């Protein structure tokens, strides 16, 4: 069996960037993709705004993906499409990835693996909507697939539950294509998408946003006929007497994304309870030697530019294959929703560590602090922070005099 240096699982933006950098670092690379085309979810993200950081241009999703696909092809990287991973086996010297493809059952042997499996949308089953089970209840990504890849309009009049970015983007997209979006309902008192999307997707088209509201029931036998919406209290419980029936033929859900880590879990990779992706160090190495995690499988990002950055780093590190060494845990203090990395490996370079984080709540004027044994070693001020808007900063952890028994902490304080 041919042996690869790096096997990349997933041919979306993370997998492509990881493959490119692993190849450039000298590794023999194969990309395994289950769909017929590379590009992942970007294929259906026809809106623009991608690449502002990476390319300094406002690109549509497919444009951004194709730039990476072109590069991967120019580097002669082997890409196996229509190939689905069924399992990963740990061997003495590395891993064997078992797949099914058009050629039947195939296996790939490699030293390291980059898991770039992306994320999944939370479904109607996970938000406990009561009522019948008619057709017409979609996730925003499914609606996006119908409209932008198949060219089909899945709704005449719809209600959107959740104010995640894909839901907001789809509110605009469906409106442009001639469907009526009755409103976007968000159970929380604040929107969960980027502020710019609230403005350019909803306000530009006079689509109402109902905060502290949710969908409480669905009606219809074969096809959705109506939904019941209601205001909620501080504990997110529907308030009696505020129910209203909205006739519609589609309910579109934009209620969150969850990193996809079935393969990671099968290998015993430790999952972080806050990002819901693997625990990782600054090289994106997981708790299992030789397994790296990149992109939305690691941590749901809002910008593909950061997905590419993180994945390129993961790919290069996977090619180098440094073994795990002495690590210091970066402990979660107050004020933070989630962050990566979760530990700093002292045997790997740690002078230019990229830290991504989200605040736990809206904050006007906040200070991020990093402490070693209770002593402040780093601080940075922010004018305003919102949980949907992930922040990125570079930290020189090599300047903090860290030892294996140092207590390293990160926290956020409003001031």
């Amino acid at each position, binding site marked *: 069996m041919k042996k690869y240096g790096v096997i990349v699982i997933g041919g979306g933006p993370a997998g492509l960037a990881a493959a490119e950098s692993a190849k450039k670092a000298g590794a023999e690379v194969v990309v395994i993709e289950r769909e017929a085309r590379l590009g992942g979810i970007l294929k259906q993200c026809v809106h623009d705004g991608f690449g502002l950081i990476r390319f300094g241009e406002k690109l*549509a*999703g497919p444009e951004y993906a194709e730039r990476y696909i072109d590069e991967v092809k120019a580097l002669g990287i082997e890409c196996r499409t229509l190939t689905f991973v069924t399992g990963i086996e740990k061997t003495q010297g590395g891993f064997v990835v078992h797949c099914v493809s058009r050629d039947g059952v195939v296996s790939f042997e490699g030293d390291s693996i980059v898991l770039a499996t992306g994320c999944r949308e939370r479904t109607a089953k996970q938000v406990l909507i009561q009522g019948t089970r008619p057709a017409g209840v979609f996730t925003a990504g499914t609606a996006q697939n119908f409209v932008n890849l198949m060219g089909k309009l899945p709704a005449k009049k719809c209600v959107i539950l959740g104010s995640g970015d894909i839901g907001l983007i789809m509110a605009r997209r469906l409106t442009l294509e001639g469907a009526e979006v009755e409103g976007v309902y968000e159970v929380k008192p604040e929107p969960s998408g980027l502020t710019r999307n609230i403005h350019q997707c909803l306000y530009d088209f006079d689509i109402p946003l109902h905060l502290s509201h949710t969908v409480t029931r669905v009606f219809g036998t074969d096809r959705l006929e109506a939904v019941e919406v209601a205001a909620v209290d501080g504990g997110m419980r529907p308030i009696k007497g505020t129910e209203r029936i909205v006739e519609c033929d589609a309910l579109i859900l934009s209620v969150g994304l969850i990193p996809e880590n079935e393969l990671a879990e099968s290998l015993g990779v430790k999952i972080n309870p806050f990002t819901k992706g693997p625990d990782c160090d600054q090289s994106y190495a997981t708790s299992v030697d030789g397994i790296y995690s990149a992109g939305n499988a690691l941590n749901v990002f809002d910008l593909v530019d950061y997905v590419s950055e993180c994945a390129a780093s993961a790919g290069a590190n996977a090619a180098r294959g440094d073994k795990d060494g002495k690590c210091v845990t970066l402990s979660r203090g107050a004020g933070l929703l989630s962050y990566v990395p979760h530990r700093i490996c002292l045997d790997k370079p740690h002078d230019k560590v990229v830290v991504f984080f989200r605040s736990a709540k809206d904050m006007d004027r906040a200070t991020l602090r990093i402490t070693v044994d209770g002593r402040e070693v780093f601080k940075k001020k922010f004018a305003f922070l919102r949980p949907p808007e992930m922040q990125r900063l570079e930290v020189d952890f090599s300047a903090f005099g860290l030892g294996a028994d140092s207590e390293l902490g990160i926290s956020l304080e409003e001031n």
Partner: protein
Amino acid sequence: MELVCIVCPKGCRLKVENGVVSGNTCKKGEAFALAESTRPMRTVCTTVATVFPSMPVLPVRTAGEIPKDKIGELMKLADTILVKEKLRRGDTVAKGVAGTDVNLVATASIYTD
């Protein structure tokens, strides 16, 4: 006038008073706020039909910004387009759309197996 900048994901909160912009952190934000208070402009992204079964619709966008009030006109035009050639990313799909000198360009290459 108070508004949120949509130029980049930062989403700066802008204020325009007598043609003077505040709250912006870059030049693009200032230009956006001034345009927004006179004639708002938008880049429009959509899809157009193709004859290729492997890719029934082709994603497209305006190569530059068009006035916001022309979006409807652009969408009507997009509805009438049928792509028959194997266009590549960046190729022009329609010239000078919605009474502007802005072209509509492909944002993906037609994929056939």
